[in-house]
C-alpha cells in the first residue's frame, strides 16, 4: 500500500527532527542540529534493511517516491516565500558580504571537487523510475 511508504517517510522525518532537537539541546544550541540529515540517514538504512528482507514492494516505494518528485515544486513555493524585499534593503554591506562569501566558497568548491579521487557515480537509470521525472 502506498500509505506504508508515506508513513515510513513520516516516521523517519519526525524521529530525525526530534533527535536533531535533542542533539541541539544536548550541546546547548538554540537550533535543530542535522535533524533532516538524521532522518535521511534513517530512511537510507531502513530502505536497505527492508529491501534485504524482501518487504519493499513497488507501491511502498511509490509512497516515498511521490514526495521526492514533489521536491522541486515545493522548492519553487519556498522561493516564493522568501523575504526578498528585506534582503535587497540590506544595502551594500549585506550584498558585498553575501557576494564575497559566495564567491570565496565557489572557488573552494571548485578546488575540492577537482582534488582527490572521485569514484562516486549515479546509479543506472532504472533505479529512479519512481523518483526521477523527465526534464520539464
Amino acid at each position: 500500500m502506498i500509505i506504508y511508504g508515506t508513513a515510513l517517510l513520516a516516521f523517519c522525518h519526525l524521529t530525525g527532527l526530534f533527535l536533531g532537537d535533542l542533539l541541539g539541546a544536548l550541546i546547548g544550541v538554540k537550533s535543530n542540529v542535522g535533524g533532516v540529515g538524521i532522518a535521511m540517514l534513517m530512511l537510507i538504512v531502513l530502505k536497505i534493511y527492508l529491501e534485504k528482507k524482501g518487504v519493499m514492494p513497488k507501491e511502498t516505494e511509490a509512497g516515498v517516491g511521490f514526495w521526492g518528485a514533489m521536491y522541486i515544486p515545493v522548492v519553487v513555493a519556498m522561493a516564493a516565500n522568501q523575504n526578498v524585499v528585506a534582503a535587497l534593503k540590506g544595502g551594500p554591506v549585506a550584498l558585498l558580504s553575501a557576494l564575497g562569501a559566495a564567491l570565496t566558497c565557489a572557488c573552494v568548491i571548485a578546488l575540492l571537487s577537482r582534488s582527490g579521487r572521485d569514484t562516486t557515480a549515479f546509479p543506472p537509470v532504472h533505479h529512479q523510475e519512481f523518483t526521477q521525472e523527465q526534464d520539464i
Partner: protein
Amino acid sequence: MLEMLNKVLLHNGLVTAFALVGVTMWLSGVLSRRLTFGHVHGSAIAIMIGLALAYVGGAITGGEKGLADFPLLGGIGLMGGAMLRDFAIVATAFEVQATEARKAGLIGVLSLLLGTVIPFIVGALIARAFGYSDAVSMTTIGAGAVTYIVGPVTGAAIGASSDVMALSIATGLIKAIIVMVGTPFAKGFLGLKTPRSAMIFGGLAGTVSGVSAGLAATDRRLVPYGALVATFHTGIGCLLGPSVLFLATKAIVG
C-alpha cells in the same frame, strides 16, 4: 460569483498553491524551451519566477513571507514552508546510494567546517571595512554570511543590536538567493557532476534552501547528496558562531 470563487480558493489554500505552482512550472518549461532552447533549466526559471513574485508580494503587502502574505495565496506558505520542504528533502534520500555517500563522507565533513569558517571570515572582514568594527557586530554579520538563521541566533546570544541583526539576516538571504540563481550557471566551474561534488557543494554553499534549490535547478539527481550535508550547516553554525568564532573575533579585534 467572484466572491464564491474567492471563497473556494481561500478555503483550499494548499490545493490553490499546487495549481499555481503547477502553472508556474509549466510556464517555466515553455520559457526554457522557447527562449533559451533548453540551456537554462526549467526549474531554474521557476525558482527565479518564485523569487520575483516574492518580491512583488513583499513590496505590495509589506509582509515578510513574500507571496504568502496575500491571504488568497497563504497556501504557498504551507507548501513552501519548513514542514513540506523537509518532508520532500527526506524523501529524496530514497535515491541516495549508500555506498556513494559513504565514499565522500570525510570530504563532506571537511567542506562543512570550511563552509562555516570561510563565509564567517569574509562577512566579518567586510563588516569591518564598512565600519562595524566591534567584535559583536563583526561576529553577527559574519554569522549571517554562514546562513540567515545562524546570524540572528548568534546575534541574540551575544547581544547584538537589532539593526545589525537585520543586516545579518539580509546577508544570509542574499547569499541563499545567489546560490539558488547562480548554481546552474556556475556548474562547470564548480565541477558539479558527481555525488561527491554535490556533497562538497552542500557543505560549502550553506543553507538548505540555497543548496537544495541550486542543485534542483542544476541536476535533480545531485539534490539528496547535497541536502544530506547541508542540513547540518545551520546547526554547526549555531554551535560555532556564539562560541568559538565569537571568542576568536574578540581575541583578534579586542
